């Protein structure tokens, strides 16, 4: 099993979620995050003070899937999160040792 962590633009979240759901992925976790990458920040002005906002708001989605579904999930995220501008985000993929469903105590791919 693999875990996909994708940092994407907040306004792309619904499009990505919809496409993943249509393709049969049955759950994901979303976190509002802040960070910086090549996009850099922007400036905000409050009365006399100008601040550079280095950390921009993004959304992180986390999704665990069986190995054979990985490419499909990544393709969907790439297709639907992309605008082509700097700041589209990143995808991290890592191996997952075990998954346990709390209610039934099922383990492994059955629990995904």
């Amino acid at each position, binding site marked *: 099993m693999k875990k996909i962590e994708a940092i994407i633009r907040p306004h792309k979240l619904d499009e990505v979620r919809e496409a993943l759901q249509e393709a049969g992925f049955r759950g994901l976790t979303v976190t509002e995050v802040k960070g910086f990458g090549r996009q850099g920040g922007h400036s905000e002005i409050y*009365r*006399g003070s100008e601040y550079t906002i280095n950390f921009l708001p993004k959304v992180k989605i986390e999704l665990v899937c069986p190995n054979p579904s990985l490419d499909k999930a990544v393709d969907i995220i790439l297709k639907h999160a992309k605008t082509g501008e700097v700041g589209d985000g990143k995808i991290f993929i890592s191996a997952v040792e075990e998954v346990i469903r709390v209610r039934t105590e099922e383990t492994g791919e059955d629990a995904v």
Partner: protein
Amino acid sequence: MNHRRTAHRTAAPYRRYFSLALLFLSVTHSLLAQDSLTTAPSLEQRVAGLEAYLNNANPSPGGHALPSSGIAGPGHNGWMMTSAALVLFMTLPGLALFYGGLVRRKNVLSVLAQCLGIAGLVTILWWAVGYSLVFSDGGNAVLGGWNHLFLSGVGPAPDTSYAYWVSENIFAIYQMMFAIITPALIVGAIAERMKYSAVLLFVTAWMFLVYFPLAHMVWGANGLMNGVWNADAAVRSIDFAGGTVVHMSSGWSALVLCLILGKRIGFGREPMLPHNMVLVMVGTGMLWVGWYGFNAGSALAADGIAANAFVTTTLAAAVASFVWPMAEWAVRGKPSVLGFCSGVVSGLVVITPACGFVDVNGAVGIGVVAGLVPFLAVWKLKSWLGYDDALDTFGVHGVGGTLGAIVTGLAASPSVNPNLSAANAAAQANGLAGLALNGGLVLEQLKAAGLTLLLSVAATVLIAYAVRAFIGLRPSASSELTGLDIAEHGEEGYTGAH
């Protein structure tokens, strides 16, 4: 006269027909009783007494005691109760939210606690000695007397030295709301870095050394700077609703206190952003609404002067709220919500001393300068001088209050407010009526502003160093970094996701 008033009032809870009968009895009884001492007032005299109510004039014209004397007039009294509530609303929660939204989230409750604490503390001081020291007779030009300690003798009958038709106890509570918001304004300059105990101690001393004397000097019947009502005023200045007493005093004290206190840890290096601009806007709207009680209520009657103040307050606030963000747009590229909100407050501050003395065109002019001058102060002055006035109390209230004192001298007109003319015996006697016509009023306004500035700065230096020596002004560095909410109040403004 007293027993008639008592009979009239205790009749109120009974059913209508019964109370009417009782009233009839009590009035005839007292008329008969009076008859045996003096002659009963004629119908004409009694009508004149009622006309005095409509004109907000002396309730005992010609010195005759009338059935209508010594009683609050329902309309005027009703407006003053409403106004008192509106001015409280400016502090709780208006100013609390305005300031609370501007600080970082870890300090939001500390600002609310400061506003709440000041409301309670100042109320106790006002009840015990404050009202007496400001408005009791028997004092001198700088401070009032001791006759109203613990609000003794302050009841529902009007004190005609101040308001012909308003209950003195309502007048006292109305004035108390001003005494509450003034020190609460200072909180903006020292936000996020002053120990709570030091805030309360500072405010207590500040009320005695700055607010009580200043309010008496400007509004007390025998006050040093009460040009309108004191025939012997040394400074013939005018201040309708508190430009000097409230805004200049708090603004200049705020500047001095924030300089003595020092900057917030990380100031200039870390971003210190408003944590909730929505609260700022909500608070601003409440301040604007409440300000009608502050300004139009300062007529101490629901009369034509109050109506004028209501209108000029609206115009100045609206114009400044528009001019400030437009100036921002022109020089910085974007009109910000904080710019709109700052413009509202700044317009209200500058019109405060002027609202009962200027006409609509004067108010629009005041709105324009109120949108530009404090804007420049917080944009340029603050960064040039490098002080950490966290929420711009000095830039808005200090600069705006001083500006207001001066423009009031330029724009005040006896045709708007006849109290500035020879029709007002005090203004005629002390020369204000002449100054209002020949332009000499500006000089008197500058004197009043100078005296206010001097008193505020000197007393604040004294109190701040004394409090620092006694209990210290700042919390520990770790408290300040953690946030005052948890460190000083043991709670958080926003506690997680559930």
